[in-house]
């Protein structure tokens, strides 16, 4: 008896859900990111307005002064949805973990000169609190923003900020006794150099407009803080004075900043290119908040880098302005 085996192709009648196909068309197979994002925003059937904010619907695009016909235009170029975001971060966590092991096993902390170690702690540990503020702010963007394409990555960003704060905590414990964390908090609360930045963080905690908060936190502040601290301070200053271990233990931060900058720029670009009113509004926010952030970081830059601090901060500001020009928001 002969058995004839034949492969038979069964083509699917449709490639994705109807609400996703509305955005990408029926012919194309949707990516996981598209299926996890498009049409996921709750839009209808809210009979009651929230008692805590009767002016708005529960999910309401008008909480922001930025006006978009469709909030799904704020796509994440990294195409993160929950699964691939966690996988990416898990890989990075493994890398950081082995860095900590490497530094521990070889006693690299003991090789850091005491002055360099103390300088590192005095700058990086108060920044735990800035990272926590960034976590709160991004959670707020996720809560009050509109459109899953915008709010889902904001929530990932909030968790990433928490991760940054945790890495700083571990760095403090690797470099010194647990009291170092207490000292960092004291500096954040009392030392005059930190009060400008603390005020900035606390003022952003009450910004109501989610898009303005996005600009103030993720673009204006972090866009200057990360190049200043993890570029100029850690990589160019501390690492060259025998603090290579510090650069290894903070390796995640500059890498993460570069990656997330692509998302932040893409969001700002998409929102600004929709209308001139959006562009002007966002440009104004960038100018105001970047100016304030620069002023707030100025004493920190001086504390970290002495007389070179101001130049390093100006360099960070120039980098931020160049990013904003590239997105077409600033002329």
């Amino acid at each position, binding site marked *: 008896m002969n058995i004839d085996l034949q*492969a038979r*192709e*069964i083509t699917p009648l449709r490639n994705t859900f109807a609400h996703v196909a509305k955005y990408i068309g029926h012919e194309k*197979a949707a*990516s*996981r990111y598209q299926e996890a994002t498009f049409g996921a925003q709750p839009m209808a059937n809210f009979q009651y307005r929230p008692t805590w904010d009767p002016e708005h619907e529960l999910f309401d695009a008008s909480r922001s002064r930025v006006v978009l016909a469709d909030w799904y235009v704020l796509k*994440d*170029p*990294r*195409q993160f949805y929950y699964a691939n975001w966690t996988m*990416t971060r898990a890989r990075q966590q493994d890398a950081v973990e082995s860095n900590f092991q490497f530094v521990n096993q070889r006693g690299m902390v003991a090789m850091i000169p005491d002055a360099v170690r103390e300088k590192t702690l005095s700058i990086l540990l108060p920044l735990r609190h800035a990272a926590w503020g960034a976590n709160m702010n991004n959670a707020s963007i996720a809560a009050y923003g509109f459109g899953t394409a915008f709010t889902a990555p904001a929530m990932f960003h909030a968790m990433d900020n928490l991760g940054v704060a945790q890495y700083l905590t571990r760095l403090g414990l690797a470099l010194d006794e647990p009291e170092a964390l207490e000292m960092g908090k004291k500096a954040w609360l009392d030392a005059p150099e930190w009060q400008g930045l603390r005020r900035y963080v606390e003022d952003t905690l009450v910004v109501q407009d989610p898009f303005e908060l996005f600009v103030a936190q993720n673009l204006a502040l972090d866009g200057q803080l990360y190049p200043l601290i993890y570029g100029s301070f850690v990589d160019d200053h501390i690492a060259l004075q025998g603090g290579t271990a510090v650069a290894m233990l903070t390796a995640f931060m500059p890498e993460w900043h570069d*990656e997330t900058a*692509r*998302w932040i720029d*893409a969001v700002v670009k998409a929102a600004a290119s929709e209308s001139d009113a959006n562009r002007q509004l966002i440009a104004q926010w960038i100018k105001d908040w970047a100016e304030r952030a620069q002023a707030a970081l100025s004493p920190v830059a001086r504390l970290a880098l002495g007389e070179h601090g101001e130049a390093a901060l100006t360099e960070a500001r120039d980098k931020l302005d160049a990013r904003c020009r590239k997105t077409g928001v600033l002329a």
Partner: protein
Amino acid sequence: MSNVFIAFQDNEESRPVIEAIAADNTNAKVVHSPGMVKIDAPGRLTIKRETIEEITGRPYDLQAIHVNLVTLSGHIDEDDDQLTLSWKH
């Protein structure tokens, strides 16, 4: 001219690679078969790292295509930035 071809498993990881190939090689023909995507091109076909990175928005190691690569034909010229299949030396 003879065709060169390359085939990938049909999954989420190969999707941006296939998209990039289709974008960079206008004369390539993408054929979806069950579980596999085969791409035929007359004479020559290039995979560019840069295009894949534009699609995914993240750094991409071109060697990662081998995880989902099923088969290919053609002479290979590859470096960190591109992989080219062709019948020319």
